């Protein structure tokens, strides 16, 4: 009995440490954003919203945020059909070369991001795509696509193949059964994947660093450049924008599909 008491204590202690460890950077950024002075000190000498006021004045941050949101939209709009259809094809059909295909579609995860970034820069350069914002969205989609395929493939387990057969048997032609039977069944996976793709895209940094210039810089790249020069509280205020977006995304995810979806066993 004492053994399990001790084990419970150890597990509890590690989890408590994890919780603090996970939350600490976010909490510190939140506190720092209300600093009244020009440097960040602890404990904070007071409370002020001046850095938020500054943020509203600073056009470069607002522009970069808007560009990051565009990147997120382009990425999500591309991933939705590409990831959903690929996941359905991989999970529903016994394909020839299925193993080879899976390895190929996992390339975004096996190729290091820095290599992907340089490679995409070269390819986009040849296609004449550099200097615009939307190609950054394409790049964000390419490098994160396996997440979308994974999310949808996980949902395919809940789709009984007999449902589609039944639909066909009742006379539903392919497009009808796709939109009224297949898609609704995998909708939780699609929603989850779309949200994750959007969040990953607005946070994408390394590949964007290579694909953007001063006119197309996205928010993470701008923050990175600013950190490298001097650490001021205005960056904390910018970071809070990300905290708010993250909270909104988690709330949406919980409302739409429930966070518990990530606890489900793959064995269904």
């Amino acid at each position: 009995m004492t053994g399990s008491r001790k084990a419970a204590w150890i597990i509890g202690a590690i989890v408590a440490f994890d919780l603090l460890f996970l939350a600490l950077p976010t909490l510190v950024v939140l506190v720092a954003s209300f600093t009244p002075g020009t440097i960040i000190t602890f404990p904070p000498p007071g409370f002020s919203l001046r850095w938020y006021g500054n943020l509203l004045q600073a056009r470069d941050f607002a522009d970069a945020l808007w560009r990051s949101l565009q990147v997120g939209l382009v990425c999500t709009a591309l991933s939705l059909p590409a990831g959903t259809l690929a996941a359905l094809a991989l999970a529903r059909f016994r394909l020839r070369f299925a193993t080879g295909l899976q390895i190929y579609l996992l390339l975004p995860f096996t190729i290091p991001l820095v290599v992907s970034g340089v490679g995409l820069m070269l390819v986009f350069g040849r296609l004449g795509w550099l200097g615009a914002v939307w190609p950054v969205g394409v790049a964000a989609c390419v490098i994160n696509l396996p997440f979308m395929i994974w999310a949808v493939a996980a949902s395919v387990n809940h789709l009984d193949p007999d449902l589609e057969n039944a639909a066909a048997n009742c006379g539903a032609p392919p497009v009808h059964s796709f939109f009224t039977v297949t898609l609704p069944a995998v909708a939780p996976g699609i929603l989850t994947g779309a949200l994750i793709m959007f969040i990953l895209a607005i946070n994408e940094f390394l590949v964007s660093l290579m694909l953007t210039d001063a006119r197309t810089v996205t928010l993470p790249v701008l923050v990175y450049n600013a950190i490298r020069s001097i650490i001021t509280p205005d960056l904390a205020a910018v970071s809070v924008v990300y905290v708010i977006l993250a909270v909104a995304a988690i709330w949406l995810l919980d409302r739409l599909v429930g966070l518990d979806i990530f606890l489900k066993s793959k064995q269904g």
Partner: protein
Amino acid sequence: MASTIHDKGAGRPVGLRLLDLLEAARELLWPARMAPLTPWLFLLPAVLLTGLLAAGLIPLLDASLRPLDRATFRLAEDYALGNYATLATRPVYGVIALRTLMAGLIVTAATLALAFPYAWMMVRTQHAWLRKLLLVSLFLPFFIGQVVRAYGWLIILGKQGLLNALLDGLGLPPSSLAFTYTAVLIGLVQYMLPFAVLMLAPALTAVPVEVELASASLGARPFATFRHILLPMARPGIVAAGIVVFTLTLTDFAMPEIMGGGGNDFIASAVYDAFFQLGDAGLGAALGIGLTLVGSAVVGVILAFFGLGTLGYVEGREERS
């Protein structure tokens, strides 16, 4: 048209009429005899998008085989292995590679050790509020980018940061963790923790709680249950989490760049610097190709040991059907 859904009258809902229209378009563009090819049509967008990435490897492979001509500052016309020779002989790259590999091992071990109890509690707890707290605490940093989190760590570990304020309050000497290897490792473990937990949790869900209870009721101590029941049964998840954390650490750029203060570069920083600071695309490409090969080899070896299903998309289905 081929539609056989009944009731074609005026009472047919707009949604269904729209579908009829799509069906007609499909009939025209993708007639029924093409049906066997439908899965390949479904795969096409993803294959093309990933193709952009594959296409990027070709000029990189090409450049890696062309050493920089120091006289003209252009890449040589003829293929040679000079860039790879440079990597093998210049000690600085050995140091960087070793530093990166060490980080990969330390971060993977630390992350798995911290993630396993977290995932276990998340899966096993009877309290809905605790599960929700653990899930939200996991997703919040996961959804906040690496740059912002690195910035948060700099505020914590910096000279006038939170840590030193706490140490000062306790009457202890200040630490100087910011811009050290340790700082990079701390940042990386925190970055990887959500990935690891999210890969472990489904694997632990697959272990029936009854097996754990049975083990305990037969007199196994908690550690024995962990060692002989949980560890083997959750192995696919542990291996997958380990692979993901190790390769992500091996190829990370932002953490060493931001938290390392310039003296703790990883391989990815060396690739970036070769391209954008040294202006030696050939050397950078060779480094990048080398990093890709090392990363893929690690994944390949581990998967060869544990099976491709570990990272596969359709693991569950294969086993069920």
